Each structure stands twice: as C-alpha cells, then as structure tokens.
C-alpha cells in the first residue's frame, strides 16, 4: 500500500491506499493504525483499500475543531465526497466502528455496505466495559487479545520507551478527548440506528474484555437486517487475532451484497 497525504476540510491526513476494485474505507480504532497489518494487505488484493489515520492521530493533523466522534463522522462524509468515492464498503473496528455508525445514521448515499468489528457507540446498562484508560500498555494487550501467547509476543515486540513516544501520546490524548465521557458511547445514537439502510455485518470476539459480546446482540436488534458473526477464542481485535477469518467474513459480506445487487439488476445505490 502507498502512503499519501490528502487534505479534506482544511485537515491534512496521512492515508494508506492500495489495491484496486470497489473502494473499502477502513476506520481504525482508539490505538491508531501506525503500520500496514496483514489483514490490510489481504484486503488490498480485492479492493481499493483506504486506511486513513484519523484527525488527531499519527501523522495526521490535529485540527482545532476536533472534539467528538460526531465531528469525525461528518469529516469522513466530507472525505468520501472529496475523493469522489462512490459505493463505498465501510468498515471499522471499535472506535472506528462507532464513527462508521455515526456516518451511516447521517447519510448512506455513498455507502454500499457496513462491516463493524466490535463497534463502540451504545451503552447497555449493567454490562460493564473494560476501562482502557486504566490499563498500562502491557495490560492493554493482555486484555484486548484472548490468546495469551499472542499477547506476550506483542508485549515482547513493544518498542522501548513507547510511553514517551510523541505519536503514542498524541493518539492517547485524542482517544481520551473522543472516548472518555460518556465512556465509549453517544447516549443518542441508539435512537437513530434504525436509519441504517445498507447491509450490515457485525463481527465480535466472544472473549472481548473491552466491549462484551452482549453488545453484538444489542446492535443486531437496533440495526435493521444486521447479521452477526461471533468468533470463538477471540478478544476485542478480530482483525489482529483472527485476521484470516475477519478478511473472509468481510469478503463474504460484500460478495452477498454484490450478488443481491446483480440479481436484482439494481442500479448502484449512489444514483437511485
């Protein structure tokens, strides 16, 4: 994938883009997307994959106007328009899934499908979430990954002095701004999830310690026609812990939408 700079609404983003096919916009979670991961390489084989670093993250600008997840939702609707993308397959993990949901309740004109991996965004009373802001980097990996060996390997591979790394600190600060309160949700989002009118797949690790799997069922009830895929032996990050399975699920979801569209002979949704 190629590294690019793109300026939208006065904010310059660091964008990783690669592959060809229908556009797939992947929105990363709270910890950012500093490197190309195997699932991205795999998806770039089927799609024109776009992985931006969010405003306030990594090498992207930290704009004055950024205060909430809703700001990012409007921003990425602008981003799609600015790049002239149509029929976008929109995917996101955790916080990125929440941004995707906030976009979809606003406007799905340019969105063809949604694939959400353990998205934040709503709150279930009495279902405690993990407190990611109390976790050290080591605890974070142990809590997000179900496979203890994988967690220990990731800890061993952690760069020296991570906690003093300016990009790590910038990402954490932006995450705190967007997620701290109300913690990982928008109290009004659930009321409008019925507006989502594109095929939606919800992927969840059964052993998720940040957002318990009970949320998958809640989202499935709130989003019309949403399908769920619950992964055994998997924590909060299916794209990392079960990358192959995650890619396969996303491809399958898109393929079903494509088949449905072809069968119906429908014109692309962008120009109904």
């Amino acid at each position: 994938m190629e590294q690019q700079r793109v300026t939208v609404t006065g904010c310059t983003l660091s964008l990783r883009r690669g592959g060809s096919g229908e556009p797939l916009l992947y929105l990363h979670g709270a910890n950012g997307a500093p490197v190309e991961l195997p699932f991205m390489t795999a998806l770039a084989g089927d799609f024109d994959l776009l992985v931006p670093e969010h405003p306030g993250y990594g090498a992207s600008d930290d704009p004055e106007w950024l205060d909430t997840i809703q700001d990012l939702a409007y921003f990425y609707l602008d981003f799609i328009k600015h790049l002239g993308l149509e029929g976008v397959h929109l995917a996101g993990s955790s916080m990125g899934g929440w941004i995707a949901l906030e976009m979809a309740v606003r406007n799905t004109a340019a969105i063809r499908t949604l694939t959400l991996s353990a998205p934040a965004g709503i709150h279930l009373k009495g279902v405690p979430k993990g407190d990611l802001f109390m976790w050290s980097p080591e605890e974070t990996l142990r809590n997000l990954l179900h496979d203890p060996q994988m967690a220990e390997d990731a800890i061993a591979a952690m760069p020296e002095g991570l906690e003093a790394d300016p990009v790590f600190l910038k990402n954490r600060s932006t995450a705190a701004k967007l997620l701290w309160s109300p913690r990982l949700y928008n109290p009004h989002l659930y009321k409008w999830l019925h507006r989502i009118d594109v095929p939606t797949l919800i992927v969840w690790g059964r052993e998720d310690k940040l957002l318990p799997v009970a949320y998958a069922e809640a989202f499935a009830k709130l989003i019309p026609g949403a399908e769920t895929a619950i992964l055994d032996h998997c924590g909060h990050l299916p794209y990392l812990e079960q990358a192959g399975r995650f890619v396969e699920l996303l491809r399958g979801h898109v393929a079903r939408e494509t088949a449905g569209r072809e069968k119906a002979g429908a014109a692309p949704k962008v120009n109904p």
Partner: protein
Amino acid sequence: MKFFCFHLMAYADLDLSFIEKHPTAWTTLPNSYYDPEKGHRLYNRYLDELEYAEELGFDGVGVNEHHQTAYGMMPSPIVIASALMRRTSRIKIAILGSALPLRDHPLTLAEEHAMIDNITGGRLISGFVRGIGAEYHTFGSIPAFSHERFHEAHDLIIEAWTRPGPFAFEGKHYHFQYVNVWPRPYQKPHPPIWIPSQGSQETIDWAAHPKRKYTYLHTFSPLPAAAKYMQAYRDSAERQGYQSSPEQLGWAVPIYVGASDESARVEAKPHFEAFRNRFLKMPIEMLLPPGYTSVSSMQRMAAVKKSLTADITIESAMELGMILCGSAATVRDQLVEHQKMLGFNNLLTLLHFGTLPEELTRSNMELFAREVMPHLRPLGETGESADPAEPGETGAT
C-alpha cells in the same frame, strides 16, 4: 516570611497492608477501608490542629481538595474552611486549591469562596488547581479538556467577582446566561489567588502575567525542581516587563522538627514513608491520564516514570530536599539557606503527613512555631529583597 500550616488530612488509620491487594489508595481503593468512627476522631483532631496553628502564631492555614482517596479526607475544602472560619479570628484561610475543571458549574465556587471571604471579613486566599489525574477518572471529566476548562472556569470566576452583574458568560465548556453572584467578595477586587503546582512553564507564565501576578505555590518535589521553577517565575515576570516580589512565591514542604537530628529522623521515618510510598502512590495511568498535560510534558514525565512511582526512604527524601527533618537548629539553617536560594516569602509547612500521630504532630508544630519560625520571620519580607542564588542542575518531578 509568612508561615502557613498546611494540612492534607490523610486517613491515618488506614490499614497499610492494603498495598498487598490494591495498587493505590486513590479512586479504586474500596471505601470499606474507611471506618467512620475513626474518621470522626481524625476530622476533629485535624481541625483542632489547624485551630492550634492560630494560637501558635502562624499567619494562615491551608486546606486542599482530593477525591475518593485515603490520601486526604477533604473532598470539599469548602467544608473544612467553613468549619475553621468561625473558630479562628486572625489567620488567613487558604484553599489550595479548588479543582476548577472538575466542576460542571464553577459558578458555585465563585459563590462559596465569596461566602467564606464575606464571613471572615477577607481572610480567604483562593487557590485554583486542575485536580490531579486520578480525579479525572473519578469524575469522568475529560482530561484532554482540563486546561481549556481550567482557563474558562477561572475567567468565569474572576469576571463573576469583578464585573457588575448580571452578564452572560459565553465559553465553550461553560455558558451561563445570568452571571450575577451574590455575595460579591469582601476583598477588593477579589481574594488573593494562589496557584499550587509541581511546575510547568505554561502555568508559570500564566500566573506571572502582569494582569494576574498570582502567587505560585510550588508543592512537594525535590529542592532543585522548586529552585528551577521559582527562578522560572522570576524570569517570566521579567520577560513580561516587571520584577516579581517574593510575596508571589510559596513553597509547600513537609517539615519535622525533633529534639535532635537523629530522633527527628527516627520519629518521622515511618510516617513520612507511609505518606510518600503508600498514600501518594498510584499507577502512571491514574496519575497522568491522556491529554492531562501537553505531549512534551507527558514525554518528560514518562521518561522519569520510575522516580515518580518508586518507593523512597526518608533519608533519600531528606537528601533531595523533599522533607526538612532535624533539630530546630538544623531545620532553621536549612530554611535560611533554601529561602535564599528559592526567594519565596510564603512557607507552607506540612507538619502532619501520612500516619504521624497526634502527639508528634503537636510537638512538631510547637517546636517549629517556637524555635524555628521567629528566626525566619524577617526573611524575604519586602525591603529585604531575596538574593536568589543560581539554582543547580535540576531534575524533573
């Protein structure tokens, strides 16, 4: 020099073995560790100690605000200041300070402080702080907006105290249609404002601004850091076009005076170490939530993470100048020297810390008041301008 008796009101009866099961005495330590019977006795003992400070000739008392912790039993310094204001008649009451950004309605602070100022006839000193990192976890307040909220709340309170009401205050975080605080403060234009801090250039530049000239109170940290930041204040004032006075600087430090250097060290040791290594201890994620300080400050803090969280002995703390401990003569000599180096006029003595029992606290207060204080009084006063020495190489805190 002016002398304040500063109290943190630790829950001294805490079972210190908590540390085997819990990482910290803040935010998440179960409140089943708190016994209201013991708390009742401690509150009244501590209030007696602060009242005794007036009798002993201190110029003021200092109280502060911390939430959900055994470190201090003053979630509301307003309550403690209120309990003291009618039982004292001469001394200043310094609230060091109220945590502005933690309030969703900082107008209530403008009201409460103004009430105390009116009732005491102008004995209030208002301290403004942001609250420590752990308190952002406690209140769910977004640490990344802490600075913005602090500055807005500050502006709101100052305007509420100085502008004729009613007027509208239109901020990003605080927006009120009718600002019209009753009572107006007793002191003109408002109570003196102190800024307790462990040192940051931004805070110092802001406090030293000619429009504000707020007293910078440097709190518990190694002596070289205190020297560095007090010098930074003087430099900042000079850059901003004036010479600051020693009255604009304060130093808060634990002090223990005993019969001899050796007996003082032995008496203070377990109580100081409980204060520093048990009551104060917290994981860095709690101390410095993301966005609480600028990325560059965070970087500096993360680099010295070990020294922030590691246990220290009273001996090394004495070496670092984090506590003054010894006979009256020793403490006196140290303070003369430190005052000369730091150039402050306000000394905030922490004469109780951690688990220090009542008897030792009282004898500490008495020895300090009778054998140390009188010798230091003339230092730093206007007229005898302090002669700040060049501070040595400094360590971050």
